[in-house]
């Protein structure tokens, strides 16, 4: 088998020199395009990723650009998609597969948990699976049932998986390229409600390594932790808090597994208070791990318990009710106001 690994000559290089406004969907598309151009082992398949370009258009134009041996529509079966990706990776390919929505990754659960996550360890590192499983995730898009699940806790609690979630177009581009280059399987979660958010970008852009959290706004009184869609919520809360003379530091987690203890603990030791925001239900949600490990590692630096501002412990609601479910900046500020501040 011959494989060509050309060193990165991104297709976007020439085209984009001055910053161009780019959506997250566009940035992801560019990342796929550039990585496919750089490495012919990268293939893209899944449901409707070919001529349609995916239901969110993240794979738009890729089949036209790279042909149907690099990008194709598979039969409609998620276990089949992930299961065949394992075989393709075993043969030296680097498959990037798409699950259409969080809830439609569940048929692939066994392949992901029992094989994708365990293969490297099973074989003492002799078999690597450089697979990227892209999952458009979370809600706030007015989707009917099954279209707004937040599945991150399932993946993040599974040893052997790397789980990342960008919150901006720049990170989307940089982290997806890094995920494809990773020799480990990556669950790459794309917050649907941010797909059409824009930022001016010159490609290729390289942001921080995908396993590091980032302080996206500095502050002194509270560490507010978000990821994916809730980074925006956290930033909005921080802006609003400014008016009340409350200085909030916002951390974008970026990597759910591994967890960047270093960055988070440093911030918490500075502010002595932390809160985490996510859309998923609270009970057993990812925020539980965030709260537990911050507390374990910084207990004597904490002035108050770590707060979780999350969805309720109910199934994701129907479109007309999601506004009541989703954590808002107001809800964040109310929760923070509820701390026993005088005890600090």
């Amino acid at each position, binding site marked *: 088998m011959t494989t060509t690994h050309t060193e990165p000559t991104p297709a976007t290089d020439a085209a984009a020199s001055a910053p161009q406004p780019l959506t997250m969907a566009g940035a992801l598309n560019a990342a796929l395009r550039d990585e496919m151009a750089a490495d012919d082992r990268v293939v893209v398949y899944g*449901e*409707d990723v*070919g*001529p*349609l*370009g995916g*239901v969110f258009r993240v794979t738009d134009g890729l089949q036209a650009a790279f042909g149907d041996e690099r990008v194709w*529509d*598979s*039969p*409609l*079966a998620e*276990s*089949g998609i992930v299961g065949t990706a394992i075989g393709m990776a075993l043969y030296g390919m680097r498959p990037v597969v798409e699950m259409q929505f969080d*809830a*439609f990754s*569940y*048929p692939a659960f066994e392949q992901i948990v029992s094989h994708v996550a365990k293969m490297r360890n099973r074989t003492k590192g002799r078999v690597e699976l450089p697979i990227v499983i892209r999952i458009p995730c979370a809600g706030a898009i*007015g*989707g*009917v*049932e*099954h*279209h707004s699940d937040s599945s991150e806790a399932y993946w993040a609690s599974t040893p052997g998986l790397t789980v990342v979630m960008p919150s901006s177009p720049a990170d989307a581009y940089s982290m997806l390229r890094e995920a494809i280059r990773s020799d480990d399987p990556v669950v790459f979660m794309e917050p649907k409600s941010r797909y059409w958010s824009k930022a001016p970008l010159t490609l290729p852009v390289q942001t921080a390594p995908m396993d590091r959290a980032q302080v996206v706004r500095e502050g002194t009184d509270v560490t507010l932790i978000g990821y994916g869609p809730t980074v925006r919520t956290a930033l909005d809360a921080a802006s609003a808090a400014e008016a009340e003379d409350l200085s909030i530091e916002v951390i974008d987690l970026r990597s759910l597994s591994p967890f960047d203890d270093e960055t988070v603990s440093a911030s918490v030791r500075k502010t002595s208070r932390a809160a985490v925001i996510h859309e998923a239900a609270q*009970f057993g949600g990812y925020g539980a791990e965030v709260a537990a490990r911050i507390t374990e590692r910084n207990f004597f630096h904490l002035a108050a318990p770590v707060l979780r501002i999350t969805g*309720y*412990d*109910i*199934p994701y*609601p*129907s*479109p*007309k*009710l999601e506004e*009541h*479910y989703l954590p808002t900046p107001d*809800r964040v500020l*109310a929760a923070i106001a509820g701390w026993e501040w005088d005890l600090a």
Partner: protein
Amino acid sequence: MSLNVEHHATRTLPSEKPLRLLDNAGHAVDGSETGGFSLPPVERLLELYRRMVVARRFDVQVTALTKQGRLATYPSAYGQEACEIGVISAITADDWFFPTYRDSIALLTRGIAPGEILTSFRGDWHNGYDQHRYRTTAQATPLATQALHAVGLAHAARLRRDPIVALTFLGDGATSEGDAHEAFNFAAVWQTPTVFLVQNNQFAISTPVARQTHAATLADKAVGYGMPGYHVDGNDVAAMYAVAHAAVERARSGGGPTLIEGLTYRIESHTNSDDPTRYRKAREVEHWKRRDPIERLEKYLVSEGALSDATRAEIADAAESLARETREVMTREAVIDPLELFDHVYSRPRAALLEQRAALEAELAGAAR
């Protein structure tokens, strides 16, 4: 199971050419093409015609309302009326139906009110009708999952010696899912009274059926389960009804499950948010529009002198009045209490949920102040 009498595996290949009773010009066909089925009586066909016309009017109305932003989404069955109405009309009110998102018009035929059908698509709540009352489950979104529910219910009924049938609809794309296989297999092994309709509308969103299967027909799948399979012209409501009716009666009398493939075409986009120009040619759509299932039956009824102007007008009136009702109900905003979010997750209240409920209640009260 001791209920199992000696059943022998059916080992017949479905005909590669879809069987039909009426050709596209509305003429009754004979002999080899019919697979041994005969035309239903004309009164039955007239009733099917009425249902199809009303169903189409509803479908067109809802698509229009969706374009106006009154619904979150709507998957249209325009062009699939022969499959939808022909097959749903083959079961009784005592039988159970396990539909998908695509099958709103079959629900309508089942007597469910437009407002209750559309509760989910307009985004009010996940499901709007009483599943027990209509013996019709929520329109399933996770593909092929509902087929297993149909098999389980049919098995329970069989254990109870209740002569009811469970009917379920699947798309061509959904047949690729593992759950479709497990449903076919459990039904055949347990010999449950289940009828599977695969509506092969030739696309799963943008993916053509040629990328879902290498088999000559989707009905061929039946062979691997030892059950009867039929490949039927899905735009011929007479054939769809006749084949489904026979399958339902065989199931009811202990003869086990049947797989029916209706070969049809999705005329509209997948849902309102789809752009079919990306993956299919207008010419193809035009070709299938010329094979319209309602027109086909209409030609036959007219040629038989069974469709008077009075009847035609009466059906049109019924269709219009349903469209009006649909518009009206979709104009009135439903009253939804956000606090109900917490009330149906478990049968008994949970402390943590009551806390969260109280928090939202306080928040709403604060906002109202």
